[in-house]
Structure formats: structure tokens, C-alpha cells
């Protein structure tokens, strides 16, 4: 067993001091109750016989002294903060909520007050404090004074983003496991081998999955905070889809808002396209979601897919971060396709039937040609003799694209997964393969032999899909992207992104998650807007987090409470015994 408060030597010296005090107290004259008696004759004899305590003389009640000393020793040991060997000193990880909803009204001030209370309860040498919002910021490292944490806390919160306790804890757990020496328990921290208490200050939620991953001996508690604002509404979803009308160069936008107990007046909702307000008749009927009492949906149809900026803005309330959402609409212009004469009969109707394309002879955007045709600088679906290339389909991509990525995407993006390559190979008695290589302009080179009428390729359902997808790929049509929500993966980000504070982020493997709401610029100059779009954030401001089963509403206190409680109980039991002994006259 080790002691938290001071070393065993100090404890022992303290006990000696207490023993000395007890000894002195027992030696001192006890306050006696004056009692007149008819005679002291028999008392004198009794005292001499019983060798009763004679004050300010010999120390007579040694056993009583030892008994009281034992009680005092137990209490003194409890004060010293003992804990079992091997458990080590408990460390603390304090997560301070700096999400968008935690910046409403006086919430940060309340969180600051809670942090001050925590500084009184937690030892600074074993506590780490991290403020978690759009960014994760260390406020206190172990060993630093608490004043430093408060000074750092007083610095403005950078950005508004959703809660990220889960993410921070996930990283913390991953770091803990990766630093765990081989052979040691996962419940041990890397350096001290002690369990950790995670203290959550704020309303950010921790998922059950993360809570379940906490090692044995770890605890998670939430610091109670007062309730927040009473009402709030916000934009929780903003999405774009191809126009239900079928028009290629149009899109539909879906807006979901939450927090209205009754159907909202869409007159009060400002909807703009390129900062110009949409006419009233463009706001379609709003329907309530049958599952959610406060969720309302608006559909905006046939908006021009010309890269415009679509925004929806709700009336301001106590929490404004979720009152606005913006999305950049895709560019989906109808592409002109030039078809070489020999192929016009085969591809003409096919192209004209596709709403994204139209045949043209002048200034085409893409071309369908044969190798024998004139060279063209536009992206081309080119049919070439099989002798000129080994793969049946060769994809020439731009230099900044990765051949392996293009090939892996080709199955879907070019519709190759629909082609019965086995059947074609049987018919041609040669394997049907796909290849990719960089080039200055995009091209899809296909064996012209595949167009032979005796093959089933041109008659298959895969052929028009292949042609349509190939033309789209060649035309580099923008995919329909959803609005980017803060804290969610920005899957479509392909190039480095710069936020409003000129900080650059390089998306890797589509795992990039913009933490703060605001305007972001891609390397190609394209703007994207990141909105809050979080049902949890919108609803959290009106109620405290319900927490997870692993979280209680206790205040943290230091680790050795269990042992100290047992010591206190033991001392109490001995005090009771002493009381009984005293009352029965067995103890002075």
C-alpha cells in the first residue's frame, strides 16, 4: 500500500507526534466532577488496591493509550490517502466542451466555473486538460499550475464545430494502447501504471462504444452544468440530388430543419442562391417527418446546376451556429459531343437520348471517334484496332491522377462492372483487360473489334451505360456532392484545402474532417462551405446530455477513497468499542 498525501516516513513521524500528544493528554489532570461524599475512607483503600490512575504521577492506563492510539493511527492513515499497491496514483483527463453548442450564451462561463471547481478537486501534477471543439487544444499538462489552464481557457475558442469527445477519447485510448509496454495490462497508463478518471465538462456526448472501450479501473464522470437555453432550431441536413424532373443541368436541394414544435413559417426562412433570395413559389411544401416531432423538410426543385452558392438561413435564436447552412451547387452543363461519321449511326441516338449530352459538330466538349479519324484535342472515346493496344479498354487519365485509383474507380465510373467480359473474351478468344496510363488529355481507347455486330457487346445493356459513363468521365462532370458538415468526412476533397484562417489541410484517404464551420477553398480555387448540420448540436443546447451508462453525476475525488473509507469504518468501529468499554466502566 502506498500513500498519496505524504511519504511513509512523514506519516510515521506524524503518528509519533500524535502519540506524544495523546500521551501528554493522558498525563494531564483530567477534569473531574466534584462530588461530596460521606467519607473517602473506602475510596482510598480502593484506589490503592485497584492501582487506579493517579494524576500527574505514573502513566497507568497504557492499554487505554494504545487503544486510542490505534484509532488515531487509522484516521491518520486515512488522511494520508492510502491506495493499494500496483494501482498507482490515479490520473485525470479533463475534457472541456468547446463545441458550437457549448459556446451558446453563458455556457463557456459556466464551463470555466466548473473548471475552477475541478482545479480545487484534482491534483495538477496528475491532470491533463484538453479543450475539445473545432480543434483539440491542450489547456493543462501534468505538472503545470492550474492558473495556466485558466489563462489558456480565456483565449478565444477557434472556430465552431460539433462535439468531439468521442474522437479525442478514441485517440487517447489508441495512444495509451500503443504506448503500453509489452506484457503490461491495458488498464495501466504508459508511465505510471495508474487508472484514469475522465472528467467531462460540458454537454458533448460520449458514445456507448467509446465508453465501453475504457480499460478496467478507468472511470468516466460528467461535471454537472446548469440547463441551457429553452428553445433552439437549426438546419440539420442540407443535400443536393439530381433533379427529379430529369434535367441534367438542374438539381434539387433538400433542407431539413429541427427544433420547431409546429410547422415553421417558411416565409421567415431566407433561402438564397448566389445571395439572391429565391422567390416564394420556389419553396415547396414542407412535410413533417413522421418519426421526429420537430423535424421539417423543404424541397427546392430544378435549381440551376451551375456551381452557384445555395444558402438557407433561419431566424436567429440563442444559438446561431446552426441557423445557417450553405452548399455549392454542382456544375452540370450539357456537354457537346462530336461523333465521327463512321460511328454516327451507332452512337448518335445514344448520345441524343442522354440528357447530359447533345451531338454537335462545332466546339465539342467530348468526341467519339476512330483511330482513323482526325486527331482531336478534346477528351475522346476512341475506338482503335486491337493490335494497337494490349488492354481491350485503355484509360488515359490526367497526369495528376493515379493510374491505380483510376483503374479501381473505373469499374463504377465507366460502368465496366456491367460488361460481361467473360463472354466477350470467349467470343474474341482473347482476354478482355483494362489498363490505365497518364496522358495530357483524357481518353478511353477501346478495341474497335468490340463493336462488331457479331459480338453481343453493342446489343448488351452494358454498352449504353459504358458509353454514357465514359462520356461523363471524359467530360469530367462534377459529381453530386452533399453539403459538408463540420466534423464529418469530406469525402470529395481531393486537393489541399484552406480554411478561413488560412490554415491548410491536406485530405488523405478521404479521412479529412473539417472541424469548424466556415468557408474553405480548394486548391483548384473552388469554394466549399462547411455548416454545422448536427441534430445533436441543435438539440443539445436545449437540454443537458443524457450521458452514457458509464457516466455518473458524481464529483470527482481522489483515488484512495475506497481504502480511506474502510479505514474510517474501522476507526468508527473501534470508537464504538471504546464507547462500550467506557460506559461499562472497563475503560477510564
Amino acid at each position, binding site marked *: 500500500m502506498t500513500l498519496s498525501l505524504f511519504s511513509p516516513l512523514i506519516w510515521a513521524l506524524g503518528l509519533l507526534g500524535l502519540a506524544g500528544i495523546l500521551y501528554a493528554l493522558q498525563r494531564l489532570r483530567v477534569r473531574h466532577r466534584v*462530588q*461530596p*461524599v460521606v*467519607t*473517602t475512607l473506602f475510596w482510598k*483503600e480502593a*484506589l490503592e488496591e485497584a492501582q487506579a490512575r493517579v494524576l500527574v504521577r505514573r502513566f497507568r492506563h497504557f492499554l487505554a493509550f494504545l487503544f486510542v492510539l490505534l484509532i488515531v493511527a487509522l484516521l491518520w492513515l486515512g488522511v494520508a490517502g492510502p491506495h493499494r499497491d500496483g494501482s498507482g496514483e490515479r490520473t485525470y483527463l479533463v475534457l472541456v466542451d468547446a463545441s458550437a453548442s457549448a459556446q451558446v450564451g453563458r455556457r463557456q462561463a459556466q464551463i470555466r466555473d466548473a473548471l475552477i471547481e475541478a482545479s480545487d478537486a484534482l491534483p495538477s501534477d496528475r491532470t491533463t486538460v484538453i479543450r475539445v471543439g473545432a480543434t483539440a487544444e491542450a489547456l493543462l499538462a501534468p505538472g503545470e499550475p492550474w492558473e495556466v489552464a485558466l489563462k489558456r481557457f480565456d483565449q478565444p475558442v477557434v472556430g465552431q464545430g460539433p462535439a468531439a469527445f468521442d474522437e479525442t477519447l478514441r485517440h487517447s485510448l489508441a495512444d495509451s494502447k500503443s504506448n503500453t509496454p509489452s506484457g503490461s495490462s491495458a488498464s495501466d497508463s504508459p508511465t505510471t501504471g495508474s487508472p484514469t478518471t475522465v472528467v467531462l465538462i460540458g454537454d458533448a456526448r460520449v458514445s456507448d462504444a467509446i465508453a465501453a472501450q475504457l480499460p478496467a479501473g478507468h472511470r468516466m464522470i460528467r461535471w454537472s452544468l446548469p440547463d441551457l437555453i429553452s428553445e433552439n432550431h437549426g438546419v440539420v441536413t442540407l443535400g443536393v440530388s439530381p433533379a427529379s424532373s430529369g434535367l441534367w443541368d438542374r438539381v434539387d436541394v433538400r433542407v431539413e430543419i429541427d427544433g420547431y414544435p409546429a410547422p415553421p413559417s417558411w416565409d421567415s426562412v431566407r433561402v438564397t442562391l448566389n445571395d439572391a433570395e429565391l422567390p416564394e413559389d420556389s419553396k415547396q411544401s414542407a412535410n413533417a417527418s413522421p418519426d421526429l416531432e420537430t423535424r421539417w423538410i423543404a424541397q427546392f426543385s430544378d435549381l440551376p446546376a451551375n456551381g452557384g452558392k445555395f444558402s438557407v438561413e433561419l431566424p436567429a435564436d440563442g444559438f446561431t451556429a446552426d441557423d445557417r447552412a450553405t452548399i455549392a451547387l454542382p456544375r452540370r452543363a450539357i456537354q457537346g459531343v462530336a461523333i465521327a461519321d463512321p460511328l454516327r449511326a451507332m452512337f448518335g441516338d445514344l448520345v441524343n437520348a442522354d440528357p447530359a449530352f447533345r451531338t454537335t459538330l462545332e466546339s465539342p466538349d467530348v468526341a467519339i471517334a476512330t483511330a482513323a479519324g482526325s486527331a482531336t484535342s478534346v477528351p475522346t472515346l476512341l475506338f482503335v484496332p486491337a493490335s494497337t493496344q494490349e488492354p481491350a479498354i485503355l484509360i488515359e487519365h490526367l497526369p495528376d491522377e493515379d493510374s491505380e485509383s483510376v483503374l479501381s474507380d473505373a469499374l463504377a465510373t465507366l460502368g465496366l462492372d456491367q460488361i460481361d467480359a467473360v463472354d466477350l473474351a470467349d467470343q474474341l478468344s482473347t482476354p478482355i483487360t483494362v489498363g490505365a496510363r497518364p496522358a495530357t488529355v483524357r481518353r478511353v481507347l477501346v478495341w474497335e473489334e468490340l463493336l462488331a455486330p457479331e459480338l453481343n457487346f453493342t446489343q448488351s445493356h452494358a454498352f449504353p451505360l459504358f458509353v454514357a459513363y465514359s462520356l461523363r468521365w471524359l467530360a469530367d462532370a462534377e459529381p453530386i456532392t452533399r453539403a459538408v458538415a463540420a466534423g464529418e468526412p469530406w469525402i470529395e476533397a481531393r486537393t489541399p484545402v484552406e480554411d478561413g484562417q488560412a490554415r491548410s489541410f491536406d485530405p488523405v484517404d478521404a479521412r479529412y474532417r473539417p472541424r469548424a464551420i466556415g468557408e474553405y477553398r480548394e486548391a483548384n480555387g473552388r469554394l466549399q462551405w462547411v455548416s454545422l448540420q448536427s441534430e445533436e448540436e441543435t438539440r443539445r443546447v436545449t437540454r443537458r446530455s443524457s450521458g452514457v451508462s458509464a457516466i455518473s453525476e458524481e464529483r470527482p475525488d481522489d483515488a484512495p477513497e475506497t481504502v480511506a473509507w474502510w479505514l474510517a469504518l474501522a476507526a468508527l468501529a473501534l470508537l464504538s468499542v471504546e464507547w462500550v468499554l467506557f460506559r461499562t*466502566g472497563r475503560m477510564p
Partner: protein
Amino acid sequence: MNRPRIAPEDLFDAEFLESVQRLRIVAQRVARSGRPAEQRSRDMGSGIEFRDFRAYSPGDDFRAIDWNIYQRLGRVFLRLFEELEDLPVYLVPDTSESMFLEDPPRIKAALRTALALAAIALHQHDSVGLLPFGEDLEVAVRPTAGKGQVLRFADHLSRLTAGERQPGTDFKTSLDKLRAMPLRSGLVVIISDFFDPAGLEPVIESLQLLRHRVLLCQITRATDREPDLDGDLRLVDCETGQLEDVSVTANVRDAYRRAYDRFEKKLTDFARDRQAGLVRIDADRDVLDQLAPLFESGSLVV
């Protein structure tokens, strides 16, 4: 210490006087019907000379009780000798502070005992004297005879409760003085708690030297042996003012009891050896209820 007097009517209320009267009448009735004590042999010689024993009968002179036989046999017998009717009774009540301390004070039981014995003796014999003592002995009433002296005795006994007197107890001095007084041989009735700061030994030594017959009336109470005290106490002897700090524990209580038991045994042994009477009167019980069996049926609970 100067204390207010306990009025005679408080000390000897009507009920008590009536009971004393009944006790006295019982004794007198037996005497009229022929007191066996009056059947004296002409062969008896003069002086105090033991001749014969006879079983006690109601009305017999309690002065003639042979306490020695009682101690040994548990039965009351009378010694028969000629000087019976000339045997004065000297009542020697303890008026030291220990007799006044408690509530009710032992002095009440002591004085009631004295009056009861005086009443009977006055009706049976000639003279009864009152010699209270504390640190010293004094003569409150010289030996006086006469049936009408009972109320006078009551008044004198009541006066013993008042006035300035020294609080202490000194048996040796008091009994030495008694011994030195030119008194006819009689029955000395010492009514006391026998708590002498000097211990029991000086008491016994002084009693041994008395040439009178002795009847000891020890005024006791239950708390003498089982004191109702606990904790850390500073005991103050009410007579000497001596302080004794004590922590009352079970061990101390046991030792106290043993000390008290030794005291009682010593007193009992003395009475037996000296052929003195020893009557223990519980101060918390009715005195006459405790004395009556002696005079009515010859039974006596000591």
C-alpha cells in the same frame, strides 16, 4: 457548620410518634401482664452478675439482650441480673457532617432510632441520657427518668440538627470522654454510620475500653456498598474536606466493595467479640419497621 434546625414535627411526625406509642404500649402491656424480667430470684446477688439466660419475650428489657448469644445462635436471649432496673441508657447519636449530607440525611433515621429507644426505655426504666458526639462528646440531656420525658427528648433530639457544630467525626476523643465521665454502668447505644476518618481501628479500641454494655446502631444505606458514582470524580470528604481524585472503573468499584465489606466484617467481628449488640438501620427505610421485630417478636434482622 451552622445549619437550620429540623423541626421536631418534621423529624418525628405524628405517624412516627404514634408508631412509637404503639411500640411503647406493646412493651408496657407485656410488662403489666407480668414481665418475666421481673421474676427475680432472691438468690441473685447484687451487682451486675450474670445468672441465667431466658428467651426474649415481647416487652422484655432490650438492655438485657445477650447479643453474644444472638450472634452465635441467631436467637435473642436475655441475661438475667439484678441490676436490670438500674441500668441507664446512654444514647450517643453521631451528629457529624456525614449524618447530614445526603437526602434524606441519615440523621433522621439516627434520631428516630434514638427516640424510639428512649421512649421504650423511659417507660421501662428510670433514666435515659443523650450524649451526642462528633469531633467531641457533649451532654445534651443528663440521664433522666420519667415517662413524660419522651417529648422533651424529641425536642432535644431535634435541636441536635441545628446550630453551629464541628463537622468531623472523632470516635476516640468522644469515647475517651465518655469513658472518663462518672456514669453509672449502663447501656451505651451508639447511633452512627461509624465513618471515622481515622478508620475503624481507633473506634474499636475505644469501644473496647468502655465499661458499659454497648449496643451499636449502624445507620447505613445501599449506596454505602454500591455507590452510584462513575467517571472521573473529585471526591470531597464532607467532614475533613479531603480530596480524592478517582476514575471510577469496574476495578475500582470492585476494590471499593471489598474495602467496605472489610469494614463491615470488622465491625461485626468486634460486636461479636465484645458481646455488643449490632443493629443495622437502613436510612432509606422506616426505622420502626426495622426496630419493631426486635421488641415485638424477638426477631431482629441485622
